[in-house]
């Protein structure tokens, strides 16, 4: 038997590593997300004393599930709601919580995919989808999630409680959607994962450590989803995109936390392992010839990852990929990025022309990246005056401190 100190660690580790998996199976078998979370918390507390007395079980994961199920069963019986459960749930709860030894050998089915589709159900708003996914599949605490989004813990707790109530009372199913709904529902799951990643990736807000955790969590969620739905090429596309972005984690900020543009990053400290994994995954995925927006974005990111220096970037290829992306996602944002690529590719006049066309769209006027892109292209052309005006516009529209700082330092660099 291990000394008591290690018991805390063993419990901690089991809960951290397996939280999503354990919770998913409990949610599926109790049909109640809040109850599942409560009984798992209970089981975790019980584990501390039980494992200290009897040693750490062979399968800590199975032990926690077993104990949590028994708690659920007790609660159903106490509240006399057991008879109202669906017969297969009743049977499952009874059989599984009866025999301690049996449970340890049991193959624990993976129900995380069902749970992620529930958490990302379009009947919930996106912020709720994100928070719920981090809580139930990532095992982040309410305080951690609130911290990551600069929300008050109380407000975040209420959001989660409301969501769990809606899932229960409106009966949002814990199921993998049928084929006809799959594309739409999967896109909602992928949007949540990418949102989590971008929250971690966009510098400046929230605590740095939690931010990086969010990136790791997004990558982990994408890996799980891909393992469970290997035939869906866009999951691989997103995973590859995130790995490639994340490979620049240590190069894209200076010691003071300020953003460094791709052009000036030290490419030697890009994470080679992430790049190679991202590119291999992307290549294998593109071969399946079911291309979607994430795969195209990953392809653009891969071109940057593969060029040893900024000057060698294959801009024509990037510009062509933006055309493909625009065909799939006709959004002005795609065109703005494309215009920047066109200017880098040595055709600033063509880039400006494209931006002028976009200016017709009134929503673009209040969009910070539009003015930042315009400023950058003008400045590179030597048109400092109009460039400065555009920069001022971009700064006034920026809501992110690091980004604002970045734009201000660009403005400062222009002063004679």
């Amino acid at each position, binding site marked *: 038997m291990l000394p008591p100190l290690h018991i805390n660690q063993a419990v901690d580790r089991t809960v951290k590593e397996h939280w999503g998996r354990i919770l998913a199976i409990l949610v599926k078998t109790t049909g109640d997300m809040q109850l599942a979370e409560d009984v798992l918390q209970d089981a975790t507390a019980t584990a501390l004393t039980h494992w200290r007395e009897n040693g750490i079980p062979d399968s800590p994961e199975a032990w926690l599930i077993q104990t949590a199920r028994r708690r659920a069963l007790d609660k159903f019986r106490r509240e006399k*709601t057991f008879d109202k459960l669906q017969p297969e749930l009743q049977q499952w709860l009874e059989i599984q919580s009866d025999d301690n030894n049996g449970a340890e050998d049991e193959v624990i089915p993976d129900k995380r995919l069902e749970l992620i589709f529930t958490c990302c*159900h379009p*009947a919930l708003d996106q912020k709720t989808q994100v928070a719920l996914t981090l809580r139930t599949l990532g095992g982040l605490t309410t305080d951690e999630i609130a911290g990551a989004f600069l929300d008050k813990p109380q407000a975040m707790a209420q959001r989660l409680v409301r969501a769990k109530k809606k899932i229960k*009372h*409106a*009966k*949002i*199913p814990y*199921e993998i*959607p049928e084929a006809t*709904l799959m594309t739409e529902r999967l896109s909602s799951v992928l949007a949540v994962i990418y949102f989590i990643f971008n929250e971690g990736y966009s510098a400046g807000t929230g605590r740095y450590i939690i931010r990086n955790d969010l990136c790791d969590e997004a990558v982990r969620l994408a890996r799980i989803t891909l393992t469970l739905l290997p035939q869906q090429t866009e999951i691989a596309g997103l995973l590859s995109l995130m790995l490639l972005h994340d490979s620049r984690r240590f190069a894209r900020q200076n010691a003071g936390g300020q953003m460094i543009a791709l052009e000036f990053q030290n490419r030697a400290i890009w994470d080679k392992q992430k790049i190679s994994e991202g590119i291999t995954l992307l290549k294998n995925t593109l071969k399946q010839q079911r291309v979607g927006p994430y795969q195209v974005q990953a392809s653009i990111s891969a071109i940057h990852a593969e060029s040893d220096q900024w000057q060698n970037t294959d801009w024509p290829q990037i510009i062509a990929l933006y055309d493909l992306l625009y065909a799939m996602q006709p959004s002005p944002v795609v065109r703005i990025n494309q215009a920047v690529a066109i200017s880098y590719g040595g055709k600033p006049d063509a880039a400006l022309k494209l931006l002028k066309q976009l200016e017709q769209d009134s929503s673009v006027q209040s969009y910070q990246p539009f003015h930042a892109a315009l400023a950058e292209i003008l400045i590179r052309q030597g048109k400092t005056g109009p460039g400065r005006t555009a920069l001022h516009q971009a700064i006034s529209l920026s809501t992110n401190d690091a980004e604002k700082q970045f734009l201000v330092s660009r403005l400062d660099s222009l002063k004679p």
Partner: protein
Amino acid sequence: MQYMCLIYSAANAGPQPGTPEFGPFMKAYQDFTTMVKDKGALVSGDALQPIETATTVTKENGKLETTDGPFAETKEQLGGYYLLDCKDLDEAINYAAQIPTAEHGRIEVRPVIVWDD
């Protein structure tokens, strides 16, 4: 599980009576009703007279107060409902999306409370 699908639309939105589009629109409603009935999902469903016919009733300090018109003066008005029996929210959303008014109005889907006895 029962879901109330509340059908909202603006008075001037969608096919208007007396226009060629109105016939097919009504036919689409008949078809929808037949479909949910055949699937065993239909509990009930009705169309309501327009808001000009509405009377809002309240009691203040025990005294009956009536107001001419609907409770809420919004652009989109409740025009009818379906009460449907569905497996889960996905099924309810799937039906709601097929209600003809979904094309130009909105359908609010609300689960009906199941009281514990």
